[in-house]
């Protein structure tokens, strides 16, 4: 392993651990909420390695616990996780020269925080270094998050309602995503996409299946796209 790759791997582990810390309240709460349903603890814990997508794990177990059939469970998860289609498309150009096996492995870890960290690094000025460094960073982030998240949910399921109310941390996750989003805003179109996406999701947050997030994201994409199309005459600087 070259020094560059080694440093990328340790950066990936470090940055992913920071996110795992921010996820402590949500992971424990999600696990505890799953433990309240009629679904077995083992199945609840298995949602982490199988789905690796917090909100959808919670919903899958709740829908399953309510006695709904297979189709409704899978449909709910598919709708909640539809944003991953966008992540997939967005990362594709950056992963174009990875091997197929590497890209298939990368897809498995493509959750919200992994996408946010990866795209922030891959799109920063000067790029993200060699291919090996990019791969090392991505999988370090993914594996660290995978293990950390799985552990949090497991503890949450096992401890259930015994988790004390401590320092409020609800702001940790949205603030982390805000900080990862800032370097991605490189022009007016990006700013419009983020603002409209955020406000749209806020206004639509009451929709079922967590669809508000997707409604906001699509509104943001359209609004940002209109701005981008209008500024297409100017030379691109990104």
């Amino acid at each position, binding site marked *: 392993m070259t020094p560059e790759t080694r440093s990328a791997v340790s950066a990936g582990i470090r*940055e992913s651990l920071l996110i795992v810390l*921010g996820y402590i309240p949500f992971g424990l709460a999600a696990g505890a909420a799953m433990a309240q349903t009629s679904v077995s603890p083992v*199945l609840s814990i298995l*949602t982490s390695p199988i*789905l*690796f997508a917090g909100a*959808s794990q919670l919903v*899958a177990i709740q829908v*399953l616990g309510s006695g709904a059939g297979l189709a409704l*469970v*899978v449909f709910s*998860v*598919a709708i909640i*996780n*539809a*944003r991953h*289609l966008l*992540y*997939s*498309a*967005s990362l*594709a*150009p950056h992963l174009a020269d990875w091997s*197929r096996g590497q890209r*298939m492995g*990368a*897809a*498995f870890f*493509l959750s*919200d925080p992994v996408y*946010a960290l990866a795209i922030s690094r891959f*799109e920063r000025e000067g790029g993200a270094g060699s291919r090996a460094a990019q791969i090392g960073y991505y999988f370090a982030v993914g594996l660290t998050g995978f293990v950390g998240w799985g552990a949090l949910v497991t503890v949450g399921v096992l401890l259930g309602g015994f988790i004390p109310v401590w320092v*409020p941390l*609800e*702001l940790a*996750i*949205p*603030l982390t*995503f*805000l*900080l990862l*989003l*800032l370097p*991605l805003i*490189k022009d007016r*179109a*990006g700013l419009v996409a*983020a*603002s*409209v*996406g*955020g406000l*749209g*999701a*806020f206004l639509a947050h009451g929709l079922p299946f967590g669809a508000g*997030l997707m409604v*906001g*994201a699509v509104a*943001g994409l359209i609004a940002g796209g209109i701005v*981008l199309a209008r500024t297409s005459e100017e030379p691109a600087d990104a």
Partner: protein
Amino acid sequence: MLELLLSGLVTYLERAVFLISKRVRPPKRVLRYLPLVGPAVLGAIAVPGILAPAGVFSLIETVPAVIGSVLGALAWRFTKQVVIGLLVGLGVWWGLIFALVQLGLR
């Protein structure tokens, strides 16, 4: 169990669809808009949680979270360190909550 495995498969396919084969690519006219995906989706994740921390949108909940987030973002702007932005943002937020509790407003 079958429900979970199928849900996992669907989630994986949603993540993998544009990564597995180089032939399955986003349409050409869409390519230049892809850099907007990060801002739009991450904005949609971040903003509702800041405007309504713990799901509640009210002066007493929203104002401290927004002030904390803005100062956290400013701290990031000067240091380019996510961890510093996070610590400043959470610190300010906790400080404001503590102040509101002391004033008997929370």
